[in-house]
């Protein structure tokens, strides 16, 4: 009984962490799944989203006169909601710009596109450094989701559960979009057979632009939600790409639910190893990957993908 009581908080924590990992992987998954492109700028877009959001929540409006005064007078919650909507949209624009550059590499080796996104990652990170400085910053969060609560003698952070809940919501929204809307159907079709989509008269160029913009904005959402936990600095995104990468592979490329389940698995593995063999908590996710891939070549639910060739 005692053992169960001791394990339970770590289980709950692991599940919450897992949803956060899944959230981190969503944007990456969409771009890999549909465009078969490894977006190494994922982490930088993640950071950029967080910086945009911070500037929207707590802007320097000295030049905006009455509008500035009016805006600063709004409640933190309202400004936070504005940031949560506006910052991903701005990052989507950046992402679309990147996609337009990417076009030159389509039909060539996958490594070329990968290196282009790597270059973009350096450029975005360095731009953040120039604009916002390299010091640690804090993104304000509404009082409603900050603070802590007690359960079973343990303290839990409100924000962490808000973030996990938001992760769950985003998973649901993306699933709805992919499964229940005509856009989603086209995207999924494009993932499986781009020639077929083109033959059906769908504008593939526009489809790719849309997917990249959407993927970038999901990266930004993850950044906005996670930086209050991780802290905000220009290179915060560096820590995102590898877990995202790993989750996609464990889950299997092109599988939505694979990514979600893999995210939760990684969360649980990290949480339990962190509690009981803490010195291995960073390594545990790689060992999970090696274990899964050794037995299941295409991850848990992976389909055949051109990236294998």
């Amino acid at each position, binding site marked *: 009984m005692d053992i169960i009581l*001791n394990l339970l*908080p*770590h289980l709950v*924590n*692991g599940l*919450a*962490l897992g949803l956060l990992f899944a959230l981190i992987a969503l944007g990456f998954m969409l771009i890999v799944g549909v465009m078969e492109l490894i977006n190494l700028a994922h982490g930088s877009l993640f950071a950029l989203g967080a910086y945009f959001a911070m500037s929207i929540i707590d802007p320097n409006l000295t030049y905006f006169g009455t509008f500035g005064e009016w805006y600063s007078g709004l409640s933190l919650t309202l400004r936070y909601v504005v940031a949560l909507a506006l910052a991903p949209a701005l990052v989507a624009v950046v992402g679309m710009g990147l996609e337009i550059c990417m076009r030159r590499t389509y039909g060539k080796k996958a490594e070329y596109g990968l290196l282009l996104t790597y270059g973009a990652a350096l450029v975005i990170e360095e731009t953040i*450094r120039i604009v916002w*400085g*390299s*010091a*640690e*910053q*804090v993104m304000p969060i509404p009082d409603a989701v*900050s*603070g*802590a609560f007690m359960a079973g*003698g*343990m*303290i*839990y*952070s*409100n*924000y*962490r559960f808000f973030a996990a809940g938001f992760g769950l919501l985003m998973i649901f929204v993306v699933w709805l979009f992919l499964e229940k809307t005509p856009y989603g159907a086209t995207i999924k079709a494009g993932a499986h057979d781009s020639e077929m989509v083109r033959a059906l008269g769908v504008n593939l160029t526009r489809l790719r632009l849309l997917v990249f913009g959407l993927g970038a904005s999901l990266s930004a959402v993850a950044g906005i939600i996670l930086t*209050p*936990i*991780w*802290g905000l*600095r*220009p*290179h915060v995104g560096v*820590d995102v790409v590898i877990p995202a990468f790993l989750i996609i592979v464990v889950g299997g490329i092109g599988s939505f639910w694979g990514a979600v389940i893999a995210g939760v698995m990684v969360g649980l593995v*990290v*949480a*339990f*190893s*962190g*509690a009981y063999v*803490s*010195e*291995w*908590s*960073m*390594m545990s996710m790689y060992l999970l990957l090696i274990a899964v891939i050794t037995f299941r070549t295409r991850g848990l639910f992976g389909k055949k993908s051109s990236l294998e060739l």
Partner: protein
Amino acid sequence: MKMRNTTTRLMTGAAACAVASVIAASGAVAAGNPLLIGLTSDASGQYANSGASDRRGMMMAIEEFNSKGGVLGRQIKTIHIDTETTPATGSRVAERMITRDKVGFMIGAVSSGVANAISQVAQKYGVVYLNTNSSSPTESGKNCHRVKFVWDGNGKNFAQAAVKNAVSKYGKKWVLMTNDYVWGHNTSKATRSLAEGAGAKIAEEIMIPQGTRDFSSSLLKIQQLNPKVVAAAVGGDDQKAMRTQISQLDMGTKYAWINNQQDWPDVYGLPTKNLFGVFGTTWYYKFDLPGVKEFNAKYQKMYPHTKMKVPGNVFYNGYWATRSLMEAIEKAGTTENHAVIKQLEQLRIPAAVRMQHDDAFMNPKTHQMQQTVYLARANLSSKDKNDMFEIVAHASPATVKDGSADTTCKLESFADTPKYTP
């Protein structure tokens, strides 16, 4: 894909290209006989922000000397190359500065790995190197060098200052959080032996791998263990993430936290709520000591646009290392390395000049600056957003001495240190 008939021209073309691009860089040999100093602080990676602050400190000291005619009548010039918080880059930068740019001295480090790498190259050529801000005990212990001087207090100094009192004040059940690398291990080892010596019991040592971003499971574990004191030796970005997560849980007040040093650039501008427990520092801009106000004013005059409105410990170390080097050169009357090293080894700075509570002096056996160590906590009642710390205690150099360093540090002899006169 043809290769054979094109590659001859390809190779010559590439070589020509490489040559052309560097000719442009090499024209910068100045007239006269200025003294060139290589600044080796990080400009990217996790210590970029501290590196910038470090550099500002050095530049202010250099500015002071240049405005009164330089050192030994020579103007001081500087060159800065990013060491990227990466030891292998540190080696290359040091080789470049010494063999290509012919620097006289090198100053600057936040990461101990980088400081190590630079000092090894510096020793090979006999170039004096100042480690301004890396606080690993190994820097003035196992990895000490004749040419290297260390200006920051180290993990063991801070542990000495903090641990003993904490056992009697807060209780005997302790948990250690240890960043799983050499600095963390050393610091936690020092904490453990001091705490156990004072009668404490270490319930558990939680290892934190480098690069950890999520501390939730460690923090749950601490709650399950329910200790009186948590001593954390967690550094860099890991510490920043941990700090945020502890403040979200309001766990900062639930246990007595003992942290190692908190560098000013790492905490400046954050809510004071993020600063939990007791932590170490070597200097604070609000000291009520002579000279501090003027020092702050000079900083603000020189760096009016910097986000950091007041100087902190990293700046202070960068400034003092550079200033002491210049003074040592003037005292020696030469830039010859052996003479300068000997001057630095005898360095003694009165408390009133150094703006600390005790006289500071260089330990000639370890080359670590022996100085007052302060314990601080968050200043929660402050209305001034610069005034983040409340200094709770200070300990003299003798009481916080890193005793083991005298035996672990084996400096090279002067005979084994090549002569170098810039």
